[in-house]
């Protein structure tokens, strides 16, 4: 993936709300004194959650001061990890897995749907401003390929049509049911189990 773009429009200020401040302080306590900088990743994630799922520059500065470390070091971490969003993302944020197993099972069909129904480019808000999408590397649900992550939930065993339905629902502000879209329970085999049949508890 290419280097992350930094949003051109940035909020002036950022500060943790009261609850997050408490959480942040308790995270910092996990580390020995003087090693508070180790908490940077957790704090960035907190900031992302608080700020509509993306991290503005002011939040990085705020965290750098909070942990007494140079701005550039926080910036390095934030640009390194793909789970930190540095530009505003939609309220409904689709992350489509395109790593090999998903790709073999038709992940690019899903990408095409996203391009058609959400926005032509990654990380660009849809027309109604509610959704955006991103291609990501393996999300660890290869058994249910192809799949995508919508905010905090996995939607699995998808195809173009099913994804279109999901996006349609989303645009009406309905949150569809997460999980497998071929009626599977977790990652169990289709058409009943074929192994360990004799074992009741398996």
């Amino acid at each position, binding site marked *: *993936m290419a*280097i992350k773009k930094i949003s051109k429009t940035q909020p002036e200020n950022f500060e943790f709300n009261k609850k997050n401040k408490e959480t942040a302080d308790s995270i910092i306590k996990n580390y020995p004194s003087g090693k508070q900088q180790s908490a940077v990743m957790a704090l960035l994630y907190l900031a992302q959650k608080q700020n509509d799922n993306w991290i503005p*520059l002011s939040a990085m500065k705020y965290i750098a001061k909070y942990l007494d470390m*140079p*701005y*550039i*070091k926080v910036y*390095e971490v934030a*640009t*390194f990890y793909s789970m930190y969003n540095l530009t505003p993302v939609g309220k409904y944020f689709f992350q489509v897995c395109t790593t090999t197993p998903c790709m073999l099972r038709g992940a690019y069909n899903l990408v095409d749907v996203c391009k058609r129904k959400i926005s032509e480019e990654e990380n660009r808000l849809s027309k109604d401003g509610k959704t955006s999408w991103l291609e990501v590397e393996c999300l660890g649900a290869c058994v249910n390929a192809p799949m995508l992550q919508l905010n905090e939930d996995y939607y699995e065993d998808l195809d173009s049509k099913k994804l279109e339905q999901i996006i349609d629902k989303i645009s009406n502000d309905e949150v569809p049911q997460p999980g497998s879209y071929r009626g599977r329970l977790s990652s169990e085999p289709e058409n009943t189990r074929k192994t360990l049949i004799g074992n009741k508890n398996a």
Partner: protein
Amino acid sequence: MLKLKVNDIDVEVEEGTTVLQACEQAGAEIPRFCYHEKLSIAGNCRMCLVEMEKSPKPIASCAMPAAEGMVLKTNTEKVKKARKGVMEFLLANHPLDCPVCDQGGECDLQDQSMYYGIDKSRFKENKRYVPEKYMGPLIKTQMTRCIHCTRCIRFATEVAGVPELGAIGRGENMQITTYLEKAMESELSANVIDLCPVGALTSKPYVFEARPWELKKTETIDVMDAVGSNIRVDTYGWEVKRVLPRINEEINEEWISDKTRYACDGLKNQRLDTPYVKINNKLKPSSWDEAFKAVSERISTTKSEKIAGFIGDMTNMETTYAAKDFFEKTIKSENLESRYEKLYINTNVRSNYLFNSSIEGIEKSDLIILIGTNPRFEATILNSRIRKNYLKNKTEIISLGDVGDLTYPYQVISNNTDTIKDIIDNKHEISKKIKKSKYPSIIFGQSVLKLKSAPYIFEEFKKYLLENNKISDDWNALNILSKNSSTVGSYDLNVLSKNSSYEILNKLENNNFEILILFGQDNLNFEKKNEFIIYIGSHGDKGASIADVILPGATYTEQDGYFTNIEGKLQKAYKASYPPGEAKEDWQIINELSSFIKRKNLYKDKNQLIDSLINYLNLNNKNETDFEVPEYNFKSEKIITEEIDYYHSNVIARASKTMSECKNIRMSLPKTGTDN
């Protein structure tokens, strides 16, 4: 000691060395990009792979500690193949635009790909492009060429103490940048250009100026501050193209400050290249004969005690000595002064005005007290040593008064002279710390020596340190940090008012002199009335603007000259270029002027001058002089560390466009990094 075998050669190395260092001790050359002796180990370029017995894969020798009984091979087929592989990967995304790259000819990547690489590329895909980054007026970036060795990041964080450089993104898309592309706020920033093994960071003022093989290289000494950094001056014809550091572990290690490096374009601007004589209140170009005539007529009709001379801040010792001889023998006057401020200097023994702990010695000091000094701007290289000491030993550093960011934390205590009195009277907590410490360093800046109570502070503090056995043959805790390169040399030559009183400076203020001869002195603080001023110097600056006769001289790159640095080390600056136009070397001007006045040369040639100078130094430096300590009193006052205009601190820097640019940017920069 550990015993190893490298290519069947037995070597013994100290514990804690790396495999790479061990191989080098055995005489095997190991190619590298990311490894640098003065920086921490990163181990990310993989160029230094060697084969180790019992290891299935080649190992990165820079990151592997040497161990007892290791058997290493650096020249096997496997190693060669590994190097070729690494080289190919490095070059996969490297643009190979050597013909238009400033690093060409002195590029590590170029050299090593010649030795260790393969002759063609198998990479058919598109190459990566990285946009240029802005890093200030000194560093030009071409980040597509970057091979991600991270030397620059480590230098900025570790040595310069400004963690402003970093690597964003990852993998192929990793990019080196400053935070939001701001200029680096460091006086050592341009050293990253030397560190960069490729042409990603190159010198902005030197861009497309010359190729390294076209330049004449002269190893010499820097005069921008009193540290005396060892430098190499590269010239193309007359012009000084660039200044690079030379390794001297005792002084500047491998670094030089930005002013040392980039004030060199000031050597081309504002130069005085022909003599000037004031006729009808206007300076007019003239010939040397006319100028000498005007001067000698004036001097021979003036009483000798009404003539005074002042030595400048970058004047070499030959000139100073010639000026001294000129005043003593030709004019028969004692009015020669090297100070421009009323500094208290006890010339009794040499160690009274030296940096006695030594620049290298400061690294082992366990307590550093700064009194009226800001080493970051007064002696940048020394400051990096203090920082190095701090990083290694977490040394306690105390400053009287807040002097701003020094790139390391320090404790601020009251900057009143009462604090010093308390310390001397054992009433302050610092007294205990000094007593307890084995190698304390007390650094006095010039701002202290200017005070009314300077004699008290200096003499009593020295007594106090002597009593507590902190001044001995082993260690001398008393340090004077001079600001200018000529200062210590002039003291060595005893170019001061009698008993280093302020007689000459007082007379100057009261306009008691009729003729002033300024030997490159531009910092005098007085109001000109009827004085006839002769300026001998290189640049049209403050001194030349008030002069009645200007005799154009040479700068430090245009004449051989000795300088004594703050530690008292005598070093020689060599002639790299020649003075412009009609200008002459300074000692020559004095010699000829003397022959004009007295019909007799002071010296037959330069060798005679140097012999005489060295003789004088040998005699003078060993013996104690008859210095009488004046009566002194304590006075309660504030020690205010004088702020210096770092980028404009001398005539060369003031004439330099690059330095002006740096100054403008520094002034408009909002604070970044870990301030506030």
